[in-house]
C-alpha cells in the first residue's frame, strides 16, 4: 500500500513563480527559465510513490534538489505546485493546525548535522518532540528512554550533546525521531557528516532497526554505496528532476542516462577491479569428515546460512546449506558427503567484477574464488564487493 505519493511536485524559488511555471510547462529548461524570469527551479515535476515499510533513497549531487524535495514533504519548504499525499491526505492543502499534528505524529526528520539542542541533556533532546505535544514529564521520559535504548545509548541520557561523538549524536537524532513513533522517517543525509567506518556501522544499525520497526523511510544521500545498501528503491535526481528510479540492481546494471552512468562510473571500477582485489578471507569452512551437526553449529554461531566445504589442503569441494544440514541431523545422517552441493558459481581470482555482478545478484550463497588448482582463495559477498569498490574509489582520489 502506498504510504506516500508525490504527484508532479514543483518548487520554484523566487518571488513570481507563476511566470516560471508557465515557461516550465512550455518545456523551457531550468537555465532558460532562470535567464528569462530570475526564478530558480528547485524541484521540477517530480512524481514517485513509496510503500509502507519501504526505504526510498533519493540520491543526487549537491544542487540536485534532493534537500528541497525532502523538505517539501513536511512543508519546511512550501512547494509551488503539485500534491503530496500521505495516507491519501494532501499535506500541501491542510490547515496549519493539521500540519502541526502531521509533523508531531506522522513524520519525523533526522538532520545531516544532527540538530541537537546543546543546552539540553540527551534525554531532553530525545523528548523534545513529545514535550511540544505537552505530554507529561513522566510519560515523555518513559517514551524517550525507550527510544534511547533502541539506539543503545542508555548510559548517556544525562550527558550533553558535546560529550558525545558524531556517531552517537546522530543516534540521539534517530532516537528523537523514533520517540514520536512516526510512520515516516525523513532522513536528510543523516550519515554524511560521519567518517566512513562509523558511517558503515550506522547504516548497519539503521538496517537492523528497520528490520524491527518497518518505518517508511525517505533517505537522502549523495553516496551511491550508501544508496545501494539502504534503499529498497532508489531515485536519482539531477537539476530538480528524477532521472532514474528503480531497485538498486537496475540502477547499477542499466543506467538510464549519461548522468546516471557517470554517477555509476565510480562504481565502474567493476571493470578495473578483479575478484581477488575485493574478496574476503573465507571466515569459516568445514571439512568433509565433519558431521552435519558441527556444520549447523558453525553456521548458527556465525549467523550464516551456508558453508563451503574444503579438504585439508583447501581444495574446494562444494557447500552445504543450513536447511540440508538440519534435515540430515533430523534423519540421523552422520556424514556430510550426501548433502554437499557441487553445482555453484565460482570465479577465478583474475576475473573483473563487471563480469561477476550478475552472478552476485542472483546467487544465494557467497561466490567462491578459486585458483587453477581449485584451492579456495576467498569469497565474494555483496557487501565486500561494494566495500571494495568504495575503497578503490577513495584511493583514486575522489
Amino acid at each position, binding site marked *: 500500500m502506498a504510504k506516500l505519493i508525490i504527484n508532479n511536485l514543483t518548487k520554484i524559488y523566487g518571488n513570481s513563480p507563476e511566470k516560471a511555471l508557465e515557461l516550465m510547462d512550455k518545456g523551457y529548461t531550468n537555465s532558460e527559465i532562470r535567464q528569462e524570469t530570475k526564478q530558480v527551479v528547485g524541484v521540477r515535476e517530480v512524481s514517485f510513490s513509496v510503500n509502507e515499510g519501504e526505504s526510498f533513497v533519493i540520491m543526487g549531487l549537491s544542487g540536485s534538489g534532493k534537500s528541497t524535495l525532502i523538505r517539501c514533504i513536511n512543508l*519546511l519548504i512550501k512547494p509551488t505546485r503539485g500534491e503530496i499525499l500521505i495516507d491519501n491526505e494532501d499535506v500541501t492543502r491542510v490547515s496549519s493546525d493539521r500540519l502541526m499534528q502531521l509533523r*508531531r505524529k506522522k513524520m*519525523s526528520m533526522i538532520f545531516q548535522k544532527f540538530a541537537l*539542542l546543546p543546552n539540553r541533556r540527551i534525554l531532553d533532546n530525545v523528548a523534545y518532540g513529545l514535550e511540544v505535544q505537552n505530554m507529561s514529564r513522566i510519560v515523555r521520559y518513559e517514551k524517550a528512554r525507550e527510544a534511547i535504548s533502541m539506539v543503545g545509548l542508555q548510559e548517556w541520557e544525562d550527558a550533553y550533546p558535546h560529550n558525545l561523538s558524531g556517531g552517537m549524536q546522530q543516534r540521539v537524532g534517530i532516537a*528523537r525521531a523514533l520517540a514520536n513513533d512516526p510512520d515516516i522517517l525523513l532522513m536528510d543525509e543523516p550519515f554524511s557528516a560521519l567518517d566512513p567506518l562509523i558511517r558503515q556501522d550506522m547504516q548497519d544499525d539503521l538496517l537492523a532497526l528497520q528490520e524491527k520497526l518497518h518505518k517508511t523511510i525517505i533517505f537522502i544521500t549523495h553516496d551511491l554505496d550508501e544508496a545501494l545498501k539502504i534503499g529498497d528503491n532508489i531515485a536519482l535526481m539531477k537539476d530538480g528532476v528524477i532521472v532514474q528510479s528503480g531497485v538498486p540492481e537496475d540502477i547499477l546494471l542499466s543506467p538510464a542516462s549519461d548522468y546516471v552512468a557517470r554517477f555509476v562510473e565510480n562504481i565502474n571500477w567493476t571493470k578495473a577491479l578483479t575478484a581477488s582485489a575485493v574478496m574476503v578471507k573465507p571466515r569459516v569452512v568445514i571439512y568433509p569428515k565433519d558431521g552435519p551437526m558441527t556444520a549447523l553449529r558453525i553456521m548458527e554461531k556465525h549467523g550464516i546460512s551456508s558453508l563451503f566445504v574444503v579438504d585439508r589442503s583447501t581444495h574446494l569441494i562444494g557447500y552445504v546449506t543450513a536447511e540440508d544440514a538440519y534435515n540430515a541431523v533430523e534423519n540421523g545422517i552422520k556424514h556430510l558427503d550426501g548433502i554437499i552441493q557441487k553445482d555453484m558459481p565460482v570465479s577465478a581470482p583474475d576475473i573483473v567484477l563487471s563480469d561477476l555482478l550478475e552472478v552476485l545478484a542472483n546467487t544465494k550463497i557467497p561466490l567462491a574464488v578459486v585458483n587453477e588448482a581449485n584451492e579456495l582463495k576467498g569469497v565474494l559477498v555483496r557487501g565486500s564487493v561494494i566495500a571494495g569498490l568504495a575503497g578503490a574509489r577513495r584511493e583514486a582520489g575522489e
Partner: protein
Amino acid sequence: MNLELFFSITSYFTDGIPRIPLGRWTDQTIDFLQANFRESTQAISEILEIIIKGLQEGLISVPPLLVILIVALIAWKLANRKIAVFSLLGLLFIWNIGLWVVTMQTLAMVLAAVLMCILLGVPLGILIAKNETAYRIIAPILDFMQTLPAFVYLLPAIPFFGLGVVPAVITTLIFAMPPIIRLTYLGLTQVPEELLELGKSFGSTFFQMLIKIELPLARSTIMAGINQCIMLSLSMVVIAAMIGAKGLGGVVWTAIQTLNMGMGFEAGVAIVILAIILDRITSSLGKS
C-alpha cells in the same frame, strides 16, 4: 558663550541660504509634548519614583554587613571564589570610607534601570528579529539613542519627569537599552537554521520555538547585552547626578563643584568597585 556660534545658530540664514531650523522645531515639539502629555508623564514619574525610592530605602535599611555577605555569596555561587573575595573586600572598603548609603542609592538606580531595560528591551529585540518592518523602523532609532550625547536629552527630561531619580532612570533607559535590543536580535538571528528546522519539523508552535529553542540558544548573547546594559547604566547614573539623582554621581558632582579632588577620587573608586562586581557576576552568568 562663543558669540559667533550663538548668532550662526539663531539666525534664519547661513551664507544667504535659508537655514533649516531644526533647533526651533525641537523646542516647539518639546513645548507641544509638554503641554499635552505632561500630566501622563508626571503620573508615570510618580509611580516610578515610588518604586525606585522604595528600592533605595530597602537597600539602605538592610545592615551593610548583611548586604555585603549576600553579594559575596551571590558572586561565589554565580561566578567564582576570587570574585566573591573581591566583592567582600571591595564593599567593605566602600563601607569603611563612608560611601555606603550613596553606593546603595546608585545600585538601586542601576537595578531599576536595568530591570526596565530587560523588560522592554528583550521583547523589542524579539520583535525586530521576527519582523523585518519593525527592524527597519527601530534600528535607526537605536543608532540615534546610542550616539546622541546624553546631555542633550538629560535636560528635556526635566520638564516631563521633574528633578531627581526618575529622569535619571529614564535617561539611563534611553542610553543603556540599545545593547539589550541589539544583542537579543543578534542572538535570535544567529540560531542555526537546522535547529529552527528541527523545531518546526517536530511541530512546535511559535512560542514553543521561542521558549524552547531560540531564547535558550540566544541566552549567552542576551546576557552579554544585559552586561553591557549594566555597565552603561552605571556610567549614566553618574552623569544623571547633574539632574539631582544623588548617589555616587552626586558625590562626584559635588567634588567637581568644590574642587575636592580626594572626595572625587574616593567616589570614583567606589564606582569602579561596583562596576567590576556587577560586570563579573553578570558576565559569568552568560557563560555557564
